[in-house]
């Protein structure tokens, strides 16, 4: 099998740098696996390890510090047949830690090669997340205060299904890389290097300490407790089971509108009253009569508590401005909503219609007010007030009539919700027959 080394791009590493051995080992591994250059992409970031992609005749993507796993993820999911090898140093492992953890958890078939040389070589030998506390670095005393990170332990804890630690001169390195590449899942292979340019001089014992490690490889392959479905396989299987999204609902115009100008309706309620649903029923109803509509809502981020306000504009003309300053109709259904829009009552138009629940206080006004005790008079519960108030509206205001309302209910609701809404509407309509306004 042909070498994948790029003969036009000779290695540029410092004399004695272990990275050069890893370049050779990766090439041997890819050759052993009989992979051709166009079946492989090498994804790199910043620092000395970031030069890796240039040494090979493969596809290459060189990007931002700590982010190779993000590009690798997109590439692998878009082209599952590619062998994707991400190369990072200890610098990238620190700055891109979130992506390392997420990749371990995901188990997408990417091979992460970590060239750990215990410091930031390219920027002048500052400490990294893996620098020993006793090491001398150009970060002064700072590394004495931070505990070094063990990448293999991290990867195992985070869920990597293959984890290995090697020394660069080991004969087994190429075999290890080859095994990691063959592993169908996320693999992390750490190579402990000594940075001759920046680290070795201040830390002469580093070389000897590294040798001691050699006889104690803590991680050497498949992590059985993390073995599981590969992410891409799982994704494709679950994706295929998802129901197709429904196309847009097209609204047929089968009713006649009775307004010839813009009409603004404000629904003031509380969480749990389905104010938004009510607003949408109104919109569908208006659209069924050929009107144009806009709907905005306002509620706090704690969706189960507090106000719920919905603002609807209906108009035979195109609606431009979507704001409501002086509504034509206010549905006051809970104190939270009224409180939220208290200022609206100050400048309310005299011909505004207010439909209010009996237990809701509103600021005094000269408007026409229809008050209903939903529970006592019609047996309608708190959560159904939105639909009930629309039913009232359909009896008393030209923006909504009974047929439009029915269309709106059928467009917006299904099965049990629809049945309940029809019952609510029926109760309001009977009450109106007995109590004409």
């Amino acid at each position: 099998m042909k070498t994948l080394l790029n003969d036009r791009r000779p290695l540029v590493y410092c004399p004695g740098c272990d990275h050069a051995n890893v370049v050779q080992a990766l090439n041997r591994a890819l050759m052993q696996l009989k992979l051709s250059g166009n079946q492989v992409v090498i994804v790199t970031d910043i620092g000395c390890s970031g030069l890796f992609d240039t040494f090979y005749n493969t596809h290459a993507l060189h990007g931002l510090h700590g982010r190779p796993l993000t590009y690798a993820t997109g590439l692998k999911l878009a082209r599952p047949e590619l062998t994707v090898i991400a190369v990072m140093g200890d610098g990238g492992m620190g700055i891109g830690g979130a992506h390392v953890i997420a990749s371990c958890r995901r188990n997408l078939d990417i091979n992460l090669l970590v060239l750990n040389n215990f410091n930031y070589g390219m920027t002048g030998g500052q400490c990294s997340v893996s620098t020993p506390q006793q090491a001398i670095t150009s970060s002064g005393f700072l590394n004495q205060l931070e505990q070094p990170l063990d990448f293999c332990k991290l990867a195992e804890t985070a869920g990597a299904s293959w984890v290995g630690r090697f020394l660069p001169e080991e004969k087994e390195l190429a075999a290890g890389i080859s095994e990691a590449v063959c592993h169908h899942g996320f693999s992390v292979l750490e190579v402990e290097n000594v940075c001759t340019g920046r680290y070795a001089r201040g830390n002469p014992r580093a070389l000897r300490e590294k040798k001691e490690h050699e006889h104690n490889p803590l991680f050497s392959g498949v992590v059985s407790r993390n073995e599981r479905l590969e992410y891409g396989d799982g994704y494709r299987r679950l994706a295929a089971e998802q129901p197709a999204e429904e196309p847009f609902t097209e609204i047929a115009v089968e009713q006649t509108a009775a307004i010839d100008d813009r009409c603004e309706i404000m629904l003031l309620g509380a969480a749990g009253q389905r104010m938004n649903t009510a607003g949408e029923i109104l919109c569908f109803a208006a659209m069924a009569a050929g009107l144009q509509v806009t709907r905005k809502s306002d509620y706090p981020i704690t969706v189960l508590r507090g106000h719920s306000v919905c603002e609807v504009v209906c108009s035979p003309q195109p609606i431009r401005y979507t704001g409501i300053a002086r509504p034509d109709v206010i549905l006051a259904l809970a104190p939270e909503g009224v409180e939220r829009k208290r200022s609206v009552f100050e400048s309310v138009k005299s011909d505004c219609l207010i439909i209010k629940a009996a237990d809701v206080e509103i600021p005094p006004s000269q408007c026409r007010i229809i008050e209903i005790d939903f529970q006592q008079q019609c047996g309608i519960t708190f959560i159904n007030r939105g639909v009930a108030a629309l039913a009232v509206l359909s009896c008393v205001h030209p923006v909504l009539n009974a047929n439009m309302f029915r269309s709106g209910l059928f467009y917006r609701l299904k099965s049990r919700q629809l049945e309940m809404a029809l019952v609510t509407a029926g109760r309001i309509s009977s009450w109106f027959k007995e109590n004409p306004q």
Partner: protein
Amino acid sequence: MSPYFIDGNEAIARAAVEAGCTFFAGYPITPATTIFNHMLKLLPPAGGICLQGEDEIASIGFCLGASMAGRKVMTATSGPGLSLMSEHISFAIGSEIPIVIVNVQRLGPSTGSATKGADGDIQFMRWGNSGGLPVIVLAPVDAGDCYRLTHEAFNLAEQYRCPVFIASNKEIGLTRESVDLGSLELGEKIQRKCAQPFQDYLPFHTADNEMVPDFLPIGGDALVRQTSSSHGPDGYLTVDRQLINSSMDRLLAKLRDGGASLSLHELDNESGAQRLIITYGVTGRAAKEAVERLRAKGVAVSLLVLKTLYPVPEELLRNIIAWFRLVIVIEMNMGQYVREIERIAGNVPVLNYGRMDGVLISPETIVQVVGDEDLAQ
């Protein structure tokens, strides 16, 4: 007429899929989250991919990887997320990776107010990258525009191989309205131009009469190199001053010379008017209403609603502004796009009305600002 009841965010998601987007990644953030929700329902059953990244940096990183694999890709966020995406936006600009980035703007600065609208990121989208090279920013006014401009955004991203922003706003993204999609005019779908898959493919080489390099996907037969570093045509790092220079010139010129496809706008000109309102985004809706009221009161006024904010349609603006004696720029921020108008307007005075308090600028306010008699002096 085929009316649909949709909000701006759904319109963007649906239009993206229609435009051929098969890869979306995002991180939840109000008010952009529902774009992710819709993409998650739309893409996987159709064979596409929708991912939730561990953060915004990852989300756009996934997209860049997938775009280099040949997919049409999109991400969506709001101001705080856009801040995190900055390094990858720079990457996409400098290394010519097509991507559509939706920014459903919310009130800032910083985390600001999640559920309040604003247009506070206009200059941020243009300049929030290292190197300061140009991007495309399109600004919809309503849900229908979201649909049409998303289609356009994908075309521009493919054609110019660059990031294209959709500058939406909470007030568009989360406002549901009746939309007549049948009446929207959508152009042909454009795919990025591909090179012949020769073994000596140069990923950043452009022919003499071309401004955009031909694309090949990572993973195809010919080897492809992509890099975020300064590069020559071969995609290897270079310090060659001439190579870098010509690459910078080209990245500037490819968008500057885009012509009509890069100056989308709506002009409502009233003959004899001396005042021109320039606005964009959701404020364009209030401005239309204000212009009707002003004309009814006998105030002659014209309105220009810009849909392409960047690259600044300088020639268009220069030509139109020259007809007027006063330009009034209205925007939902403390004065951002007015900076572009001021430098183009020449001797024509430019006034700015801007506000950023989470509330829409109303037609009444615009009538007041523009109708002010003293302005004519």
